[in-house]
């Protein structure tokens, strides 16, 4: 451990920089990196190489080849480039590879070389060709900035939501700028460019000339510029070998440095971290790497190989053909513990633990020292934190061991930070493994990225088992964790064209089962997207919510299946949606046929038609040969839709025909009668005046009698074969209403009444004519006599009749009518009769 700080290089008085190896690269590159277009994604992302990008020949052997590797050099994809010449490569925040072609078309590829989509940067770019392009990241996503052959800039701040912006012209710009970069300030993307000794800032409205404060004189051209990861800082490299470092707003200078190398550097990037003690810029030439900051001396490294720098949030990754290294400022906790002769509590604790393992009593001395200063808590925290910054598991372990040792001597040290660090490191070490190749650092990248995004990245690399293990290890809720990953897995699975539909469906169902939060319809949608309709239908079978099945089935043009699923779901709205779909999709005949087999859908559609499309309703019945309903339909039309009498009769005729077809003779006859009645009523109105139309037969006759047209009334009754009983009731009521007592009496004597004579008594009484009523009581039959007598109020006689009949029920009826004093005698009489009857 003595040489632990051997790779620490001081920069200025306070900060150390160190460089260590992440991986020895596994790739077997034939070319030098300088012969390729290179793009590496931040956050330990993949590396893309385009070999032979500049060859114009068509020969297959020298065609450009696009290769994608993990950060550890594991090949992920390789494909022959068949499109136009590529100017620039870059990775989006979602780890999609953007390839900017000379004609302004941007092709988007997935991590595995799968083509996703393409878009164009506009006509102007197409005409003037692309001279240079940059992919940049903002908080909204990833943007593309393009410098065209006409020396104009076009950019889009978010390729996910493509909005092209053409930047204003730079006045007097004749040749390409010597260097340029995108800045991002106040959520707006700008472009900073250098032309000769001048700097210009382009925003969407204007072009303004800017001057960095405190810039050394004598600059005739800027050779290179670099913006920090967070867009906060800017570095400029001039042709005098002078480096200016300041804020990106160009309002403040941080420092400057003269390296005395006039050759233009290959790359220049910022190397800093949040809360950096000493920010630095890393400048790379062919064989030399220099770290400069606010210090008179720079740190220099020799590069054995052609190398490439990737700026990260907390350092710089440097990869070459053989190695992949990480250069960063040593974090505070590590510095405190490992700095030579450090007396920081963490350092002492680490020592103490080591001595303890050696079973030396020095352990106690060290511990006492810390405890005397009351810094044990701090020591433990330091060790935990430093463990996070270590790349090598053995170092992580020894620091954690020290922390754990120190914890034993503390009463109340909350365990979560320790536990969480152990968990996090375990996850980090797992993804740093070179098979996986995601070299994330703990402090910022991992925390910044969040575990959700990390899981997404694993899913993107199809590392489903590892992702699931992590979820289970961190005990993430199923819906966010395992189910989501399984769903992704299933979506990938359906793309395997060589496996049969049955096998895929079964495999998916076996794995997913009824895991909560998994939507089979989403997976099915993906399967359909891959052109596997049958598989999609099979997968939908597993979807428990039929409502979810329907939209996809419709999309797949399986409307009939969709209809039965919708009906199964019991959701009428869903059924209706499908119906309207079907209506547009099928011809009318087929549509109706489909409906015929689905009574629920049919009734739903009928309800709709009844209000919105009456004609369709008729067609529907016609199609079904449903003559009964068709008849009803026309009947309704005869009084709802038609106004004129001829129209109404015609509608009724159609209805009658339909009823005959439906073998409903009764309805047909009734309808024909109604036609006759209508015509007749019309004639009556014409001849007699008054209102007859729409009266029922009964009311028509009544109206005639009330109007004194007895002859006509009788004629009508004969024509329509009104039964005698009805006619008697009708006449009786009408005559009583007219109070034509004479006619009534005549009528009563015309022949024997088919309804008896009690009704005569009743009706007269209803008109309060006791006198007339009494006339009929004698003619009432014996069974109803008592009732009739009671009606006219002749209690005494009623009692006599009842006693004569010896009918118990009648007796009690009469008794119940006896009121108080007046009928006292009658009541007594009945009681006596009753007693007598009982004796017998």
């Amino acid at each position, binding site marked *: 451990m003595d040489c632990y700080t051997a790779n620490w290089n001081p920069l200025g008085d306070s900060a150390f920089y160190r460089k260590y190896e992440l991986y020895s690269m596994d790739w077997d590159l034939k070319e030098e990196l300088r012969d390729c277009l290179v793009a590496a994604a931040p956050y330990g992302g993949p590396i893309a190489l385009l070999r032979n990008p500049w060859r114009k020949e068509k020969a297959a052997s020298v065609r450009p080849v696009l290769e994608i590797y993990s950060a550890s050099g594991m090949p992920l994809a390789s494909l022959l480039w068949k499109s136009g010449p590529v100017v620039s490569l870059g990775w989006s925040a979602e780890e999609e590879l953007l390839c900017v072609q000379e004609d302004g078309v941007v092709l988007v590829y997935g991590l595995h070389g799968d083509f996703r989509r393409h878009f164009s940067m506009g006509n102007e770019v197409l005409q003037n060709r692309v001279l240079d392009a940059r992919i940049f990241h903002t908080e909204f996503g990833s943007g593309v900035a393009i410098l065209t052959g006409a020396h104009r800039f076009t950019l889009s701040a978010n390729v996910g939501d493509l909005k092209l912006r053409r930047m204003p012209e730079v006045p007097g710009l004749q040749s390409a700028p010597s260097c340029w970069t995108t800045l991002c300030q106040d959520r707006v993307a700008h472009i900073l460019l250098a032309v000769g000794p001048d700097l210009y800032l382009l925003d969407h409205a204007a072009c303004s000339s800017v001057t960095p404060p405190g810039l050394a004189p004598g600059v005739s051209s800027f050779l290179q510029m670099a913006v920090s990861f967070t867009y906060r800082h800017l570095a400029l490299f001039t042709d005098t070998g002078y480096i200016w470092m300041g804020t990106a707003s160009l309002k403040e200078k941080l420092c400057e440095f003269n390296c005395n190398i006039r050759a233009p550097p290959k790359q220049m990037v910022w190397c800093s971290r949040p809360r950096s003690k000493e920010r630095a810029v890393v400048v790379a030439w062919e064989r030399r790497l220099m770290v400069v900051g606010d210090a008179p001396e720079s740190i220099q490294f020799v590069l054995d190989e052609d190398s490439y720098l990737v700026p990260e949030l907390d350092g710089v990754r440097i990869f070459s053909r053989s190695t992949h290294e990480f250069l960063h400022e040593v974090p505070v906790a590590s510095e405190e513990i490992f700095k030579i002769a450090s007396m920081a509590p963490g350092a002492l604790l680490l020592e103490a633990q080591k001595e303890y393992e050696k079973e030396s009593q020095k352990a106690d001395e060290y511990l006492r020292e810390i405890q005397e200063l009351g810094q044990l808590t701090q020591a433990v925290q330091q060790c935990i934190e430093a463990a996070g910054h270590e790349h090598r598991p053995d170092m992580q372990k020894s620091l954690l061991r020290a922390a754990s040792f120190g914890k034993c001597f503390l009463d109340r040290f909350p365990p979560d930070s320790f536990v969480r660090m152990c968990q996090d490191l375990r996850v980090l070490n797992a993804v740093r493994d070179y098979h996986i190749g995601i070299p994330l650092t703990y402090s910022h990248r991992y925390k910044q990225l969040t575990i959700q995004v990390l899981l997404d990245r694993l899913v993107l690399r199809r590392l489903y088992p590892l992702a699931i293990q992590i979820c289970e290890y961190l005990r993430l809720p199923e819906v966010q964790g395992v189910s989501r990953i399984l769903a992704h897995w299933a979506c990938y699975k359906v793309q395997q064209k060589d496996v049969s539909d049955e096998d895929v469906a079964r495999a998916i169902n076996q794995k997913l089962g009824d895991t909560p939060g998994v939507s089979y319809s989403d997976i099915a949608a993906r399967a359909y997207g891959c052109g596997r309709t049958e598989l999609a239908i099979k997968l939908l079978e597993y979807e*428990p*919510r039929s409502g979810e099945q329907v939209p996809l089935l419709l999309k797949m043009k399986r409307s009939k299946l969709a209809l039965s699923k919708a009906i199964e779901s*019991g*959701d*009428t*709205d869903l059924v*209706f*949606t499908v119906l*309207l779909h079907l209506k547009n999709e099928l011809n009318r005949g087929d549509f109706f046929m489909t409906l015929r087999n689905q*009574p*629920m859908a049919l*009734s*739903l559609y*009928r*309800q*709709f038609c009844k*209000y*919105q499309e009456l004609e369709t309703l008729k067609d529907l019945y016609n199609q079904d040969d449903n003559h*009964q309903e068709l008849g*009803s339909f026309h*009947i*309704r039309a005869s*009084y*709802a839709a038609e106004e004129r009498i001829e129209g109404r009769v015609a509608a009724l005729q159609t209805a009658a025909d339909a009823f005959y077809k439906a073998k409903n003779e*009764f*309805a047909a006859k*009734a*309808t024909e*009668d*109604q036609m006759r*009645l209508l015509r007749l009523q019309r004639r009556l109105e014409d001849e007699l005046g008054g209102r007859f139309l*729409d*009266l*029922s*037969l*009964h*009311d028509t006759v009544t109206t005639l009698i009330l109007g004194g047209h007895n002859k006509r009334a009788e004629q009508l009754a004969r024509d*329509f074969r*009104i*039964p005698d*009983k*009805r006619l008697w*009731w*009708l006449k009786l*009521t009408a005559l009583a209403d007219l109070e034509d007592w004479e006619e009534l009496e005549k009528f009563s004597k015309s022949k024997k009444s088919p*309804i008896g004579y009690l009704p005569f008594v009743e009706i007269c009484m209803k008109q309060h004519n006791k006198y007339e009523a009494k006339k009929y009581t004698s003619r009432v039959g014996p069974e109803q006599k008592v009732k009739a007598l009671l009606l006219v109020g002749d209690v005494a006689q009623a009692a006599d009749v009842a006693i004569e009949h010896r009918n118990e029920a009648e007796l009690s009826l009469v008794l119940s009518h006896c009121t108080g004093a007046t009928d006292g005698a009658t009541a007594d009489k009945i009681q006596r009769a009753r007693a007598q009857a009982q004796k017998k």
Partner: protein
Amino acid sequence: MAFPHRPDAPELPDFSMLKRLARDQLIYLLEQLPGKKDLFIEADLMSPLDRIANVSILKQHEVDKLYKVESKPAVSSSEQLCFLVRPRIKNMRYIANLVNADKLAGRTRKYKVIFSPQKFYACEMVLEEEGIYGDVSCDEWAFSLLPLDVDLLSMELPEFFRDYFLEGDQRWINTVAQALHLLSTLYGPFPNCYGIGRCAKMSYELWRKLEDEEDGETKGRRPEIGHIFLLDRDMDFVTALCSQVVYEGLVDDTFRIKCGSVDFGPEVTSSDKSLKVLLNAEDKVFNEIRNEHFSNVFGFLSQKARNLQAQYDRRRGMDIKQMKNFVSQELKGLKQEHRLLSLHIGACESIMKKKTKQDFQELIKTEHALLEGFNIRESTSYIEEHIDRQVSPIESLRLMCLLSITENGLIPKDYRSLKTQYLQSYGPEHLLTFSNLRRAGLLTEQAPGDTLTAVESKVSKLVTDKAAGKITDAFSSLAKRSNFRAISKKLNLIPRVDGEYDLKVPRDMAYVFSGAYVPLSCRIIEQVLERRSWQGLDEVVRLLNCSELAFTDMTKEDKASSESLRLILVVFLGGCTFSEISALRFLGREKGYRFIFLTTAVTNSARLMEAMSEVKA
């Protein structure tokens, strides 16, 4: 009288929460349209709305003027119009006309449509077809349960009956399922579920699906209501078709109770004004007589009047201090009681007057004869006379249906002649009414092969019961038969009377029909609750044509308290009558249960018949 509950009867859950929920939701929706606005309300929603939020609450939330949605267009000058409607196509056209008229006049306003209880896609379709979908914003007011009384929840959806049982339209089933879901989220899961009928089964299944999708929420809760029973109205049309003779039912039949309140006309109030009276458990007088047979009510009221007088009389002989106490504490209550008493006495008088005019006794006698199945010819002639005399189209229709259902359809001769008579009396458009009634199975013709019953019984003697069951199923799929007579025998619906049935001290649920008939629906519920399943009722289920539509679902009861297990929610799909409610209240008192009623609407025979009638527009 007014039997008290057993001391161990469980407490009812507090349903006023439903009202608060609905009110808050409505206010939220109104606030979505800030500023002054005119509110257009569908007529059918006015009374329910009134029970939830009165005009002053609406005014508080910047409702300016109120309009009724009706056929003639309203003239509103407001810049914002809000429509509160049922999801009906008719309403959509009304709104479309209004919006399109504005467009023609070059006027732009804000329109918002609030659908209650839910929005249907078909409605949105109509808005789209009328070209105004983009002009209006749509919302849902999920107000599906109105507590009319402490034990009565109504969905206030009278159209449910016609839509489902006549048109076969199933869209309200979702609403029912949502309502049940709401109840189970508020009052805990239901450990025991029973049901019978197609609609009951579908609603139940849909409800279960909703619960499964949203599981976890109700799982941990203690059930407050131990049983739920879902019943389709078409299981028992007979009960709904009978004349009601318990007080509340009679008031409904005579004056029509609307949304828990009734308009008593001048003949009742004995003044020149009509009076709107809320009828529920809070009306002390009403609460004591609502479930009583009408013949007892008058006696009770006069006794009550005497008591009241006695209480008034107490003030004689009081000293000043006592008098002061009396005035400040008792007088108000007495006066209130006095007022209610005189109202109900007035109502009784009015009912008596109406009923004697219509030969009520004859009518009841005929009904009882139909229920018991004797003197069918005599009853048929009575009905014929009823039609000939044009007593009342709805009443005539009701009697015809009652005859048809109890007799498994009319014999062809009667079917024709009665229909002919009816058309002659009440107009030819009723041809459609008859077609509706036939479709709903309310008025049918005995099929020529309807000696089936005879064949059937012979067959069942020859082969096993199971095979006979199958044969009957096959037949019943041809013509759905009511089998009332057989069911009635099986379930003992016509009590054997030895001597007079004492209506003052009822023996069984038959008292709601003067002791002549135990309501079928209530008997089914009683039997199933007794058995805790359909076991042993196979024959009845088969006769109801529901072999596959009767279900039981029990979950473990470890969490349910014994108190909750005596609370039973009965869901009537298609409506229930006050007689049924009274009968079950009676059953509850006998057995120590409490019943809670959830109905799509409170119904009676007239409402059922009107739903089936075609009337000229």
